[in-house]
């Protein structure tokens, strides 16, 4: 074995990380140093999964930073890669706990409540543990918009909210559901990559000025949030959407953290 290509497994997907590597040095704290025959050097958080000597392949597992339980947030993700559901389709979503779309441990169904809001009515919905997440099944979807939120009470209070579209073209204003801290999009519409997305942060129903809203998206390599914006005097802010997939917006005020998942079709 002279040199090898190094592959990184991230979210279950293997990708080529570095070619012609002739030196691999595992370090402390789950770091691995790679050096190529060209002198390129890279240090990353990963563990060696497999050395395929005959095929000149080294496979690493990405190591994600541990989420501090005091710093964790909840977020909801609809189980569709399509941006919406169709009428009659089984509507389900998953609640996660972690940081910046990186799930961690500590999510327990007995400490969390979830509700479906439709036409001003709130109905509790059951949560079923599946892996690190909690699954919510809403049954067959009826045409229209459905807001779902979840909350975890404790020393820190965490809220997660998402708006799910069943059917097409339900473009309309969005009403808050009344969370102590809540991100409310200006309207519901089909949002595209490259659009500005506008929302307001409410604290007990009133606009919260000067709040920092963090945002992230699938595929971000940052452990933190690559987007941060401050709300203006009317509690509003906007973010330019630079990545495909659903976006997660998160805001903290005191001991309350509240997220909103923007569901995109692409």
């Amino acid at each position, binding site marked *: 074995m002279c040199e090898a290509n190094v592959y990184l497994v991230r979210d279950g997907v293997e990708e080529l990380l570095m070619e012609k590597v002739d030196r691999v040095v595992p370090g402390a704290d789950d770091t691995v140093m790679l050096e190529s025959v060209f002198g390129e050097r890279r240090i990353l958080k990963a563990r060696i999964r497999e050395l395929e000597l005959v095929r000149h392949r080294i496979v690493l597992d990405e190591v994600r930073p541990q989420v501090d339980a005091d710093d964790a947030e909840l977020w909801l993700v609809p189980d569709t890669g399509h941006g919406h559901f169709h009428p009659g389709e089984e509507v389900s979503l998953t609640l996660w706990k972690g940081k910046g779309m990186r799930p961690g441990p500590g999510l327990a169904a007995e400490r969390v409540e979830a509700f479906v809001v439709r036409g001003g009515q709130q109905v509790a919905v059951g949560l079923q543990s599946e892996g690190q997440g909690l699954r919510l099944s809403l049954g067959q979807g009826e045409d229209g918009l459905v807001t779902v939120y979840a909350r975890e009470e404790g020393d820190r209070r965490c809220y997660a909210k998402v708006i799910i579209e069943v059917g097409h073209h339900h473009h309309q204003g969005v009403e808050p559901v009344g969370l102590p801290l809540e991100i409310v999009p200006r309207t519901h519409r089909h949002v595209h990559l490259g659009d500005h997305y506008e929302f307001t942060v409410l604290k007990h129903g009133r606009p919260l000025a000067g709040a920092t809203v963090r945002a992230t998206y699938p595929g971000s390599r*940052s452990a933190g949030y690559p987007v941060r914006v401050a709300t203006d005097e009317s509690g509003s802010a906007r973010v*330019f959407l630079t990545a*495909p997939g659903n976006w997660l917006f998160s805001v903290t005020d005191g001991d309350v953290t509240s997220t909103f998942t923007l569901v995109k079709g692409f």
Partner: protein
Amino acid sequence: MVEYSERQGTPVCMSQSPLEKAVQFHRHVCPGLLMGVRAAEFALQFLRVSPDRDEELVAIVETDSCAVDAIQAVLGCTFGKGNLVFLDHGKHVYTIASRERHRAVRIAQKWGNLRGAEFERFRALAQKTDLSEEEELEREELRGRILEQIMSLPFEELFDYREVQLDLPPRASIHPSVRCVRCGEGVMQTRAVETGQGWLCRPCAGEA
């Protein structure tokens, strides 16, 4: 067991924006791709045409950068269709022509439009291979701001353009294939070399 994943769907009942079409084709979002999207969208508007279906448009590109993937995805001028002509000049210049309207527009990226300190820092980070967590975060923040800038700036701040007269290349034609007498593989006759022993493909003829 449910594994966490953020699936990126392939919409079949929601329209895609030109930028999304470009990203779906190119598979990532970068400044070069967005410059190509701006150029392609402008060309459609300037020429008052729709994206190409069957060689109504021709794109002559003077670079092989990311932007060309946007030209292909947004305009429909593709390498395989034969209406994407590559001139290896290393210049961010795109000439888009309409056969039906007999018009062409030459679009050239303005010198210095993306050469501020922020862009230079982004490029330095993008070329670095061992980014720290702080640098990775900085790179993504800068990338987001640059992408927003590219999509928001008036077109004239990013590009120069002018209408040009162009002798358009003929529509792509289909030629018969012959068999290379050395390697046995098929080769388009117009690209083959005729020798005393028979047809040779260019690699076998030593011309590659």
